[in-house]
């Protein structure tokens, strides 16, 4: 099968490259991947929901809530042209909410195009209890207004 020699060489060279690249880049080097999606079964997760704030004076505004509590206040990210997974990753993976990161989220949401909107970036987390039931909690992080971003004082106490 001499005719396949070249084919075999290219295929195995790329396979070797694939292995090296995913091994040195945490499993991802597009299009190479170990395809780890949903491999971590049972692990807690964090996503993001953009809430519409209807009453700024509400004293419970910064409280942790259930998903049902915020369900009817969710802003459709599709309707404002934002990828929900991008938003979720931005909200869930950011640990240091510095000015650059906050500005980045305002840019992603195009806040300037909605000057009258009062939106809240909420981190939603889910986990399994010892009794194997699912608990979902919604933690408000940031409140966006026309020109200011307020941080949840219950979380960012030192700021």
């Amino acid at each position: 099968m001499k005719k396949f020699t070249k084919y075999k060489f290219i295929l195995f060279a790329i396979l070797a490259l694939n292995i090296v690249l995913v091994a040195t880049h945490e499993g991802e080097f597009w299009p190479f991947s170990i395809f780890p999606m949903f491999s971590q079964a049972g692990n807690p997760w964090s996503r993001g929901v953009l809430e519409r704030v209807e009453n700024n004076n509400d004293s419970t505004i910064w409280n942790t809530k259930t998903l049902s509590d915020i369900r009817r206040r969710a802003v459709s990210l599709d309707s404002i042209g934002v990828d929900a997974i991008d938003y979720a990753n931005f909200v869930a993976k950011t640990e240091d909410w510095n000015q650059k990161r906050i500005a980045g989220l305002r840019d992603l949401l195009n806040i300037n195009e909605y000057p009258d909107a009062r939106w809240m970036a909420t981190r939603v987390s889910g986990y399994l209890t010892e009794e194997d039931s699912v608990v979902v909690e919604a933690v408000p992080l940031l409140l966006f207004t026309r020109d200011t971003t307020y941080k949840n004082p219950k979380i960012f106490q030192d700021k």
Partner: protein
Amino acid sequence: MNSLLQNLFEFKRPDSIGVKLYLRLFELFSVCYTLIYAWDWGFYILRISDVVLPLGLANYIDVEIFFGNSLPLISAGLISGLAVVAFFSRRYKWLYILIFLLLHLQYVTRFSLGEIPHSSNLIGFSILGLGLAFCFINNRWKALSFAYGFLVFFVGLSYTSASISKLVASGISWVDGNHLWLWIAEKSTDVLSAEGSYTLTWVQELALQSRLIATIILIIGLVTEICAFLFWWKRLRPYITLLLIGMHIGIYYSMNIWFMSYLIELSIIGFPWYKLFNYLDEKYNLQNRNNLLKYL
């Protein structure tokens, strides 16, 4: 090994109109989806201003140069121009390798916000396969056969790799139904975030009613992924394709995740459409009547 290579790269009657039409259809699909992704990602990059998670070449190149200007659209335009030239010319098909590099840059820039989607990976493998093929193999039809086999190889490897990732990360308890409950809650949150509301699908309701049913759903998914390497063998390919398509439909109803480009690509490369084209050619004499070969 040679049997596997034969299964990947060799067609019966390689000079037939059916095989040529089939390979060009595969090439056309790859080019079309490359254009879709290039422009889709290009327009989305315009609203990004920060790198949250660098991927691929973004670990070595500062992709922030693509932010705040029209470079992403220029890149999409360049990819489009090169793709059209590569598809229609016979001399410049090696341009696919350049298109692959530009598309990689477009991907790592677009997905610098933390999301690592896999919906475009098969298109990536297609364009990489086409690029390598036309760089190293002179005969156009042999190069296309190689690109096709290259993609078939990575399709089988990808799905099986996904199942190995699951077993390594979570062990056999991965299939426990309560894990599906947790993912349903996660994906429901994603749908709520994207659409502003959500309702459970009938599969989700069924899974949430019974841990056993949820476990069975996960077992079916895992077994399908484990068997995906059988896609490398021609005779088994259509059956594995049906299983994989069924799995993707199941993923859509249980997790609200839809892989459109995967489904179309699997439908093209997973079934021996060239046999149908050859049959039509023999029956209606397409080749002589329409001089089809001239246009391929």
